[in-house]
């Protein structure tokens, strides 16, 4: 469902490097057996649509009615606009924040009775993503204060009982981009997979 975003990136433009990595997360995670959950993005789109609609309504009221006729409607619209704007700001700043991917594990095994058996098999399955993972959240940031910018990944894994496991890692962009400026998707996928496996341990 998700597509790979192939694009030539300027290797010195840290933001572009990060955006390209972020854009490819859905593709990689769908390869790893996750289904993207758009709840946060949909809330964001819903709130901004509401804001744009209120702006448009105010414009219409302003065009159709005279200043004194439209005054009360305008006051109401302004109050509602700034209330939603506040909610939107808080949502983007504290909830959405750095979350770039949320996904559900399609291979999740909800049958908790099997847990013990599975744990015995775990050693053999070491290289695969744990079936007990239910939900994954990936946050990414960029650290530009260093000599070379690094890509910081925070992976949060939720199991069926909503217990969280968290793992921070960072990588240099040179390890996933080639000299021509193309993202090496296999390398990147391997790093993400290893990070998820490390997190789940």
């Amino acid at each position: 469902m998700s597509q790979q975003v192939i694009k030539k990136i300027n290797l010195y433009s840290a933001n572009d490097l990060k955006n390209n990595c972020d854009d490819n997360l859905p593709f990689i995670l769908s390869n790893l057996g996750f289904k993207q959950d758009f709840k946060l993005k949909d809330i964001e789109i819903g709130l901004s649509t509401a804001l744009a609609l209120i702006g448009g309504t105010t414009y219409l009221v302003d065009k159709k009615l005279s200043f004194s006729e439209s005054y009360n409607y305008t006051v109401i619209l302004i109050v509602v606009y700034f209330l939603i704007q506040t909610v939107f700001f808080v949502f983007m700043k504290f909830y959405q924040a750095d979350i770039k991917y949320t996904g559900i594990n399609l291979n999740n095994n909800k049958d908790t009775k099997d847990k013990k058996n599975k744990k015995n098999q775990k050693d053999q399955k070491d290289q695969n993503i744990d079936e007990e993972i239910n939900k994954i959240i990936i946050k990414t940031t960029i650290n530009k204060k260093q000599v070379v910018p690094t890509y910081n990944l925070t992976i949060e894994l939720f199991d069926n009982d909503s217990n969280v496991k968290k793992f921070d890692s960072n990588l240099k962009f040179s390890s996933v981009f080639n000299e021509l400026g193309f993202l090496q998707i296999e390398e990147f996928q391997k790093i993400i997979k290893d990070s998820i496996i490390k997190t789940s341990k």
Partner: protein
Amino acid sequence: MLSVNRQQISQLLQFALIVSSAFMIWKTLSVITNSESPIVVVLSGSMEPAFQRGDILFLNNRQTFVDAGDIVVYQIKHREIPIVHRVMNQHSNLQKLKQFLLTKGDNNPVNDLSLYNRNQLYLNREKDILGVVKGYLPKVGYLTIFITENAYFKYTLLGLMAISSILQRDE
């Protein structure tokens, strides 16, 4: 496919948000000052040396009466462009809260009777006045004059804004 669409929708919405926030801030200012147009640009030299072409004026329209000697912005019915002139005479009725004003440009030799509508001898404070000048910024409004007098420049500027907000992705 779906996620790419969401990304594009949210970038388009970002442009809509820039436009609607700017408009809502303008309307908020308009409601706070009770003025249809709380910021105006001086277009003529009729108030020199107090104001020159290109000055930006900040208005307030909350007070019930305007004083003689205040500089007001008024708009005559059915005419597009508001005028900034000083109040020469004022007649007020405190019971009915009514006030009539006669205005004159500092740089004009005569009062504004010729600028008003036919048979109109005074301005009605409630209906004609957009606000009283409370502050100004010299020369900054030249950009607005330039934009309004050059249609191509206006559309180029709008187009560039739209394109940059859609294409640009900052962190």
